[in-house]
């Protein structure tokens, strides 16, 4: 895959996509009726949320592959995705209040997207904490894979449960719920932003994976040295 899509090309594409996205956010998309300029945060807030979700899906799949095949690279992918996904997830939680306060006068609301993202954020934190606090790092892959799988099952349950919960305790839909009637230019901007964010996400993951791969090579060299030296 690296040969077909070198990181340099990926980088250029991501940069281009981000520039186009920026243009569309500020110059192409029309101003929203009630909220004004601040609504443009929506174009960052929503794609970041989708990307954070995608991140955990990748963690889920890598975790299953690791437990099944025991390939080190699956574990590295899970760890890397967790780190990058965490950043995107935090981004959603930060842009949320930044948007909500000027637009609706409240800092926070437990709408479907924010609730799901917050719970997802807690899962990312738990996953990353587990990696950091293990006494024996050799067990990290196994244990994190288990948490990755149970965590994703939880994400699915979160999605269904939140939707059910909102039927019981309905809330006025304020933060752009489904079918809230977007101008086609807004939809186009949203999609472009989503594409740009996904490209950015995978770029960061690849860069981080390269680092992990280098670390692994270094470790292997150290292992060979440990063999050669101490020959007594």
């Amino acid at each position, binding site marked *: 895959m690296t040969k077909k899509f070198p990181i340099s090309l990926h980088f250029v594409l991501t940069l281009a996509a981000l520039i186009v996205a920026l243009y569309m956010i500020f110059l192409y998309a029309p101003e929203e009726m009630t909220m004004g300029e601040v609504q443009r945060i929506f174009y960052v807030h929503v794609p970041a949320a989708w990307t954070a979700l995608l991140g955990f899906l990748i963690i889920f799949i890598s975790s299953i592959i690791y437990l099944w095949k025991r390939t080190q690279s699956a574990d590295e992918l899970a760890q890397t995705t967790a780190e990058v996904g965490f950043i995107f997830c935090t981004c959603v939680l930060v842009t949320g209040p930044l948007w909500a306060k000027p637009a609706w006068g409240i800092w926070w609301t437990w709408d479907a997207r924010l609730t799901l993202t917050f719970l997802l954020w807690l899962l990312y934190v738990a996953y990353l904490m587990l990696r950091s606090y293990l006494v024996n*790092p*050799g067990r990290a892959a196994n244990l994190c894979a288990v948490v990755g799988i149970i965590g994703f099952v939880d994400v699915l349950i979160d999605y269904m449960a939140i939707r059910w919960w909102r039927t019981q305790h309905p809330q006025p839909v304020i933060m752009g719920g489904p079918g809230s009637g977007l101008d086609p230019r807004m939809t186009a901007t949203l999609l472009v932003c989503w594409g740009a964010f996904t490209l950015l996400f995978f770029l960061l993951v690849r860069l981080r994976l390269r680092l992990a791969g280098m670390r692994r090579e270094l470790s292997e060299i*150290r*292992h060979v040295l*440990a*063999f050669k030296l101490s020959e*007594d």
Partner: protein
Amino acid sequence: MPPQDHIAKPVLEVRNVTKFFGDLAALKEVSLGLACGESALLYGPNGAGKTTLLRMLVSLARPSSGEVLFGGRNIERDGAGAKAAIGFVSHATFLYGELTVRENLKFFGSLFGLSDLEKKIDAALELFDMRSREGVFARDLSRGLQQRASLARAFLHDPSFVILDEPFTGLDSQSVKQLEDLLRRLPEQGKALLFSTHDFEQGAALAGRLIALKAGRVRYNGPLDAAPFGSLGIVRAAGPKN
């Protein structure tokens, strides 16, 4: 759980095993085998990798590369047969402090699915002279008595492979002698014994084979009497031992 197949005489094997703890190589390309009727002494300085190797034989540690086999089958995939045939004693006693000696043995016996459990517990306790203390809580036992209780636990299921990591630690001289007599009989009973100890002469009196481990590598693996003690750094006492 079918009884151990003494007829087929399975072999406990380690093939080209390397174990890394971070960047430290605890074991380097270690290969050895143990068959029924053999008794082997695992000897080496502190940090040589003896405990790591012994733990690997009972699935308490996983090799970074290489395999551990029992009867030709990798114990990672098919470990039940190995576990049913091996008795293991280590620094940790694996006993619940809140339970009595007998209750501990009863619990472990049930995990092994043993029939006639009460009789087997009696036999194991007799073997290590713990009958009189079977009702004592494990946390109230002295270190030496805990070691004997742990030995009783290890022998409870009549294992054909006995693997002991410094089993004489904490034992008084009488218990040491009793354990030595017991271990000496194992090969003729068709069992296999692999143990480590810091007292070379004591080990030499019990074992036919020597496995010398140093810095994670096997330096020697063969008949004990023929070992090149000098190059292995082992100093033997001159003359017969009492």
